[in-house]
């Protein structure tokens, strides 16, 4: 068992006109850690993973597994196991042969192969299917065979590329916990790629958020949620994502206020020390708050938010209300170029996660309470968090 360390790794595909698919990535996955790489489509997750596997060459930087730089080592000598999105099971082999193939190639004795395959099958609850061919298995079973093929190897690290994306929603939830359980059981360093932030949050010891080949932030799921390093991470993590609106900061009579449209918000005292707000007085910032910080009962909260309900989604346990918060910006928006107007409009839409019994009517105006304990501030240019680092 070992750790996996990316050291300023860059990948430029030939023919990509020098545009890197992975850009200067430094990341270290500790021994036994479950690291999730998450990000939107095309952000370079698969590329990063394939470089660890040795299936893609590294343009610059190094990748080390267990302290050994692997840049020029063949995949088979890296002692890693990989789970592919489409499972890539060998169609002509049975489940047992699929799982034992890597051991057979490595010349492991038959008895030991059988024993290890049996063990893996037990962990994965595949005992009954050992003699079937992949064709005769359900999607979930195939997925588990793919997992089994990885775990019998007892490798230095597991690499998994969206292993759950071909499963239906319910099975995905089931396998999510299953994979996490097995990984904890085996304690092998794991790099897990997904574009699904729920998977990332529920499975990872730590989560690395990528965007356009650049690492945005690496943190535990909770820290990622509570302290997003930039607007992108804030908008990517959480479902529904964080509300981000444009607001002007000003200061008067010793208090800081954020203005948006014809409303304003009192910024609690505490943010002065944790955020670099002083430089931003009189300027525009991106203000962020989570959907659950909006509450229907507006008598107990610090502040209020008036909005028009555009859309109401009842999920049974809760209601998602999609709101337009500023009534008079719409006029101004018409004067802006379309793309800018689009951005502003997006930044004046918010979502509220309300309790199921809230009375919300589409088209009506409502006043919600806003808890201001967890506000976020971002630079509107580039989206960096205005939080002051205290490490």
């Amino acid at each position, binding site marked *: 068992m070992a750790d996996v360390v990316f050291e300023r790794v*860059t990948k*430029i595909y*030939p023919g990509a006109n*020098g545009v890197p698919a992975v850009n*200067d990535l*430094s*990341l270290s996955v500790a021994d036994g850690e479950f690291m999730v790489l998450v990000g939107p489509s095309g952000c370079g997750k698969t590329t990063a993973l394939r470089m660890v596997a*040795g*299936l*893609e*060459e*590294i*343009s*610059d930087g190094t990748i080390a597994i267990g302290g050994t730089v692997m*840049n*020029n*080592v*063949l*995949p088979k000598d890296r002692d890693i196991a990989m789970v592919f999105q489409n499972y890539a099971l060998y169609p002509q082999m049975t489940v047992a042969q699929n799982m034992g193939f890597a051991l057979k190639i490595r010349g492991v004795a038959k008895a030991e192969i059988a024993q290890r395959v049996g063990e893996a099958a037990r962990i994965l609850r595949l005992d009954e299917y050992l003699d079937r061919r992949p064709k005769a298995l359900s999607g979930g079973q195939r997925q588990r065979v793919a997992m089994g093929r990885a775990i019998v190897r007892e490798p230095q690290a597991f690499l998994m590329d969206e292993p759950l994306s071909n499963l239906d929603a319910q099975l995905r939830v089931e396998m999510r916990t299953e994979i996490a359980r097995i990984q904890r059981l085996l304690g092998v360093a794991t790099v897990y790629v997904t574009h699904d932030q729920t998977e990332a949050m529920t499975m990872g010891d730590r989560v690395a958020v990528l965007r356009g080949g*650049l*690492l*945005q*932030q*690496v*943190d535990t799921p909770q*820290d990622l949620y509570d*302290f997003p*390093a*930039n607007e992108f991470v804030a908008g990517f993590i959480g479902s529904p994502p964080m509300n981000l609106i444009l607001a002007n900061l000003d200061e008067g009579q010793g208090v800081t206020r954020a203005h948006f449209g014809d409303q304003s918000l009192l910024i609690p005292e505490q943010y002065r020390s*944790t955020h670099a707000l002083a430089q931003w007085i009189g300027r525009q910032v991106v203000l962020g708050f989570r959907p659950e910080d909006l509450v229907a009962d507006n008598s107990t909260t610090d502040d209020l938010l008036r909005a028009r309900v555009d859309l109401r989604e009842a999920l049974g346990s809760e209601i998602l209300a999609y709101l337009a918060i500023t009534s008079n910006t719409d006029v101004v928006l018409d004067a802006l170029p379309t793309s800018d107007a689009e951005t502003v409009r997006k930044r004046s839409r918010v979502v509220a996660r309300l309790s199921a019994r809230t009375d919300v009517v589409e088209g009506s105006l409502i006043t919600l309470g806003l808890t201001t304990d967890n506000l976020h501030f971002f630079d509107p240019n580039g989206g*960096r*968090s205005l*939080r002051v*680092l*205290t*490490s």
Partner: protein
Amino acid sequence: MAISALDLRRTPRRAGSRFRPTYSTSLLTRRRRRMGLVLTLPALVLITLLIVVPIGQAVYYSMTEWNGVTTTWIGPSAWTQAFHNPTMWRVLENNALLLLSVPFALGIPLCIAVLLHQKVAGWKIFRSIYFLPTAISWVVIGLVAEHFFAYSGTLNSMLDWLGFSHSHTNLLGNESTALIALGVTFIFSMIGTNTMLFLTGLATLDPSQEEAARIDGASSWKIFRHITIPHLTRFIQLAFVITIISAFSALFSLIFVMTGGGPGYSTTTMEFLVYQTGFAQAQFGTAALYGLILFIIMCVVGVFQLRLLGAKD
């Protein structure tokens, strides 16, 4: 409250160490390329030695006179001489006339494929029967055809039976009609292959499209003309190419057993002329030249076909 946001902490790279793309090829990539080369090499050698090099040699041969014993260099004028040779034009005329059979070699299989596609009870048995002649050698088909067209053959027996005893034919023995017999045999020989192609094409037709048209009140003919045929275009093109190629280069067996190219030159095609010139008359140079002319004609057909395909895409 430590935040480990890497992008915020990162020191900018020093200008000197500015990253340069290296495209260094990994060990695996090198192995892959080497294996790729190794695996293609035998094919490359085989095709080079037995197809590409002989084309070059043929060009050289075509400019010599070679009677099997002595070789004399003639040069490019061998080509101009060939173009003044009436035999070659006579033979090319046969090739051109044989092209008249192409519409039949496509049309008849198209009808048969549509028949089969109706899927009446037992259609699979019929399908097997219709395709069966594709399995047998054109030598065999030629043999049977010869006895069909012969003076005392089946064709004349049939005419007797129909009461046309006075109009006995001798298609193969007659200079003006032997080519017709050859063409008919050729059409028969192509039916299996082309039917197979069209039937595969029809199988990929989406039946719901046809149903929708039928509900809209389109007649069977309209459906065939405006849905089926356009859908089959690619298959018809492929069948067309295969048929033309066969007409130019696969008739050897038929000619060899049915007519030997005669009477006179009446059933000699370009490919048969190559054989005759080279092996009956031992004029290797001229034979090579004729072979190249055949090749050029087929290239022209190929390019023409590519243009057709290109125009459609």
